[in-house]
């Protein structure tokens, strides 16, 4: 008797266990799918130039810094890296500087024109923004912004601004307005309440969206290739040298693109899916 009554319960438990194993197996498989290619790039980057072009390849890095040192010392690379940093930093500052006030206004106020502004921001997403680099190239030549870090930063800010607005909008909306109201009743002006109450609470999120803006700029290819010639950023440099550069250079360059991005995304991982998810709704 007891055997008959035990089996159904055990059966369900087994089914659950099998489901769990399947879940974990799938998760691991997907992780490998994402991580393996990056690992392979790093292997190449950390191998000597001969090993990079050799066949067959070894699946382990030899930790030879030959490729990387060739890369750094290659003409123009160090400057390209530095240009990328400058452009990305400028983009970050501009995107947050323009975007955060707009995000605050959208979250706290109701006013005519609110819908229009939101529509404008949304429209920028429907448009392949890098294409704007084409007419801007001409405009920049005329205004002397051509081939400057600030010029490219302005284009990248156009890319990053909609995100900055939408992300700060959801950030500020998540902070109850009662906190500001309480501060007003306790003696604060609007600006003081913002500075003392809202800003400390929003800072992590704002920092995360700043890093996100930085990453967008760091990774952008088309506009950088279009708008920079002498002062190339890393992406422009790598793109334009694709035809002639040796393999080990390509891979070292790829690693230089990837590793900072990995670090950035790790730094903002808490806000990652909240940001993208909310920003796209």
């Amino acid at each position: 008797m007891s055997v008959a009554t035990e089996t159904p319960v055990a059966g369900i438990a087994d089914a659950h266990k099998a489901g769990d194993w399947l879940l974990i197996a799938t998760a691991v498989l997907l992780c490998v799918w994402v991580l393996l290619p990056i690992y392979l790039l790093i292997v190449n980057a950390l191998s000597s130039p001969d090993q990079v072009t050799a066949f067959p390849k070894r699946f382990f890095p030899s930790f030879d810094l030959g490729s990387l040192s060739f890369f750094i010392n290659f003409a123009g690379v160090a400057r390209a890296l530095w240009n990328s940093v400058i452009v990305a930093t400028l983009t970050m500052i501009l995107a947050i500087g323009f975007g955060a006030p707009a995000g605050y206004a959208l979250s706290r106020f109701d006013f005519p024109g609110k819908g229009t502004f939101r529509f404008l921001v949304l429209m920028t997403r429907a448009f392949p923004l890098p294409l704007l680099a084409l007419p801007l190239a001409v405009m920049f030549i005329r205004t002397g912004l051509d081939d400057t870090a600030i010029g490219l930063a302005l284009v990248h800010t156009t890319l990053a601004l909609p995100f900055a607005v939408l992300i700060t909008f959801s950030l500020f909306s998540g902070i109850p307005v009662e906190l500001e109201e309480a501060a007003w009743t306790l003696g604060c002006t609007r600006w003081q309440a913002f500075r003392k109450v809202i800003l400390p609470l929003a800072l992590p999120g704002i920092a995360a969206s700043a890093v996100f803006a930085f990453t967008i700029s760091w990774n952008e290819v088309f506009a950088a290739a279009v708008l920079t010639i002498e002062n190339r950023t890393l992406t422009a440099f790598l793109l334009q040298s694709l035809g002639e550069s040796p393999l080990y250079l390509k891979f070292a360059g790829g690693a230089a693109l990837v590793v900072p991005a990995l670090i950035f995304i790790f730094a903002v991982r808490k806000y990652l899916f909240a940001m993208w998810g909310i920003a796209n709704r």
Partner: protein
Amino acid sequence: MAEIAIKGVAKRFGGFTALHQVDLTIADQEFMVLLGASGCGKTTLLRIVAGLERPSQGEVWIGGRRVDHLPPRERGIAMVFQNYAVFPHLTVFENIAFGLRMKKLPQQEVERRVNRTAELMHIEQLLKRYSGQLSGGQRQRVAVARALAMEPDVILMDEPLSNLDALLRLEMRAELKGVLAASKTTTIYVTHDQVEAMSLADRIAVMHQGRIVQSASPVEVYRNPAARFVGSFIGNPPMNFIPATKAENGSWTVAGLTLSGPKSDKPRIEFAIRPEDVDAGGEGLRATVRVIEPLGPHTLVTCDVEGGLFRAILDSNASVQVGDDLRLAPKPDRIRWFDPETANAL
């Protein structure tokens, strides 16, 4: 002196009128409760007094000064919000000290006041904690302490107890009453809970659809409701209303009983009596028992009177059965009459 005068205040949001020309005077150190259901405009009125909303019309005076064009920080008020609004990034100490620091008070004075109000609200042991580490009730106390520390002329409270569980609400209610009486500030307290209103208020202003229907002491509001709404809103179980038809010689007939009533041109008016103000037996309203609920201290009997629902509170010893025909005699001085159209007392 922190007398509050609300003169002809109206508030419209787009096409919707939240407040229709409200007038109210609150004496210095009076505890005024704004009571009403959701959407009646009580919170809007409070926020207008606080300066968090601008009135579409009318004036607000605090302590003899006209304040409706001033921001909250210049009105001499402190406020306790429904969700407490305790700053999450500051310790309890810094929360309570926030307003004092904004006033640039010397450190000694800040510490004195914070410690005093923390003791008052029994949270001295929590001063170093952050809001995330506190329970709802504790956060509530921090919010009250923060307001009291300002030593304001006026304290405004927006349903401060409604997010607490029932037992905590009971405790806090008693505590608040004591603390606020001792602080000698004028208080405006908003709630939808009529028990809270009855327990705490010096005066209750009952609000309905953007108007103040009656403002009087709790006993007065309970015994002499100025409008049908007040009678039905206050008291649990609520007041009973039965139609009364005109009889000869200025009398009125209600459910088989003839009583003397007010003078009126109308052929039908409304008779109202509270459940606890009827006795079983003798000359009374004809009632058929439908549901009997023995509640312990008394028995709640739901009856059919003139085709409508009638609740009576009877002694727990009363022997009644479902289906019984009863006579419910109303206590004569507790009978109230209402005009069926204007809903005002007659």
